[in-house]
């Protein structure tokens, strides 16, 4: 063997690849996890190819003026039309894009902020920690939805603002979880050894702390997406969604406001709701499967 193959970087990457392969093998053994993954992939593919399978022009009321309103499925289009003659199928397909996009980006932002606060608080301790954790607790106590509503009402309805609002309201629980994990990792011997060898805070946090809390962050991310999607849906249903974009929550809002319930226009209010349930359930199943593999507290449980 030459010295090149044994470079520390090479060794580290080989190890990481093996760990990933091991995790995937464990994940594949979980039936709920695989079911969730398949449902999820189906929706992601549908959202990505939306421009190919559905004409977004059908979402704009001015284009659909000649279409029949309240058409049943089959009478006009695969899923019928709404009170303005717009295609319900198009709303479903394009709505999936916004729901998934907001769900993923807002979760990413939440994780970024929560992990940053959690790692800073856990690693440095002392006064910054007590300050950050006090702030976290305050945000935990403020009721989540009213806060999101107030923020969204002030910032105005747009996709970016909804993402921002969700991130601002949902980071605290992640911060608390990550901090607890950082506190246990910090105690380990190799952190002390590395410090004794002259490692600085940047090296310690990025090379030792972060890789060790990363699996937990990943599992928590997958479990946060469903909550975020439900929040987005609720905000849109309450009239705080982006008025220019179709989303499942907005479809439900319009269906309810237009009287789809009284008319029993089931093709109008069922698809969007079922889409939400499917995506949320899929993410929850994936997240629980990942958590069982990656969360050290659950890993050795015999349940």
């Amino acid at each position, binding site marked *: 063997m030459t010295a090149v193959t044994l470079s520390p970087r090479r060794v580290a990457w080989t190890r990481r690849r093996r760990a990933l392969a091991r995790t995937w093998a464990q994940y594949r053994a979980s039936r709920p996890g695989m079911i969730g993954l398949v449902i999820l992939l189906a929706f992601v593919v549908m959202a990505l190819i939306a421009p190919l399978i559905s004409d977004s022009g059908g979402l704009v009321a001015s284009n659909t003026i000649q279409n029949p309103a309240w058409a049943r499925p089959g009478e006009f289009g695969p899923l019928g039309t709404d009170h303005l003659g717009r295609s319900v199928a198009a709303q479903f397909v394009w709505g999936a894009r916004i729901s998934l996009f907001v769900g993923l980006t807002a979760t990413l932002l939440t994780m970024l902020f929560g992990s940053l606060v959690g790692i800073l608080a856990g690693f440095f301790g002392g006064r910054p920690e007590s300050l950050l954790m006090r702030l976290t*607790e*305050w945000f935990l*106590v*403020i*009721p*989540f*939805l*009213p*806060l999101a*509503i*107030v*923020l969204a*009402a*002030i*910032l105005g309805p747009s996709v970016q603002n909804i993402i921002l609002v969700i991130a601002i309201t949902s980071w605290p629980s992640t911060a608390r979880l990550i901090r607890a994990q950082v506190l246990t990792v910090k105690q380990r011997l190799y952190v002390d050894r590395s410090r004794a060898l002259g490692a600085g805070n940047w090296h310690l946090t990025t090379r030792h702390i972060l890789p060790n809390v990363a699996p937990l962050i990943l599992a928590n991310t997958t479990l946060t997406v*469903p909550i975020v999607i*439900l929040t987005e*849906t*609720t905000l849109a*249903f*309450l*009239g*705080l969604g982006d008025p220019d974009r179709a989303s499942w*929550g907005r479809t*439900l809002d319009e269906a*309810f406001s237009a009287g789809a*319930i*009284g008319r*029993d226009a*089931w093709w109008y*209010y069922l698809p969007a*709701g079922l889409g*939400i*349930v499917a995506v*949320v*359930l899929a993410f*929850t199943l994936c997240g629980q499967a990942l958590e069982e593999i990656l969360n050290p507290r659950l890993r050795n*449980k*015999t*349940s």
Partner: protein
Amino acid sequence: MSARFVGRKVLGALVTLVFVIVFNFFLFRVVENDPVGTLVRGRNLTEEQQQRLSEDFGVDQPMPEQFRRYVVETAQLNFGLSFETREPVWDVIRSRIWPTVFLVGTSAVLSAVIGTWLGIQAAWKRGSSFDYASTGTTMLLYSMPDFWLGLLLLVLLANKLALFPTGGFTDAGGDATGLAGLADQAHHMALPGLTLTLAYLGEYAIIMRSSLLDTMGEDYLVLARAKGLRDALVRRRHAVPNALLPLVTLIAINFGFVLGGAIAVESIYSWPGLGLATYQAIRAPDLPMLQGLFLVLSAAVILANLLADLLYAYLDPRVRSES
């Protein structure tokens, strides 16, 4: 429980309340540096009317003076006038509190009791068909937007089967007092109550199940069995009480969620509570109303958390001794 422990918890809750009040001020004055602009967005108002609004909101004053006025007025429960109806915000909120307390209180208790019971049964007979059915149903309910569940129940139970009224607080013109009036209100509360109960029991069932599964591995349960206690007795006396502990905190956290869920559910069923008021304030938009509602809802959740903390300490001596 020592008086010092209670005092510290109460003080903590008060500090949180102060944080919320200050935060609320900055939300509406600093983030939104032009509240009047927001109010008149999309409305036709004359220069003079805008000027009067600026004075109403005190935004023509310097910031520290605005803050002083805000604190004094908030302490007097003066949240200003509703932009829509020009009524004092607090008067509107006060008239909406009781319907929400009845609805959210009943649903929070029912979802906790039923969810916990389901979790216990599922964990005790782990792997049984009951476990599969209960876990599957609760996962499904947990994945549903609460308002969509409400819409489904509205279609099914109110429109199709006509078992319940579609909305409102009492029958039209129904001012029956006493027992008949109470029955009428309960009849109207049944559907929103059922919606909130079903929407929030899933989490209790899931958490209770895993908490009891954790407890079932403990040595004292083996000992209890070795003593010859019957299965039901082991469960009731030894397993369940310990597994219940994490639930106390969950009830307080969930109270906040049920309160939030009530916003959409109350508006579906036109239940005249704080949730419907919030919905109407969003639609208007009525910022002074939203601000007042946000403060009142936050205060309610802070109070619920305080009560849960005290209850937890009463139930678990380990928490009390922690400094």
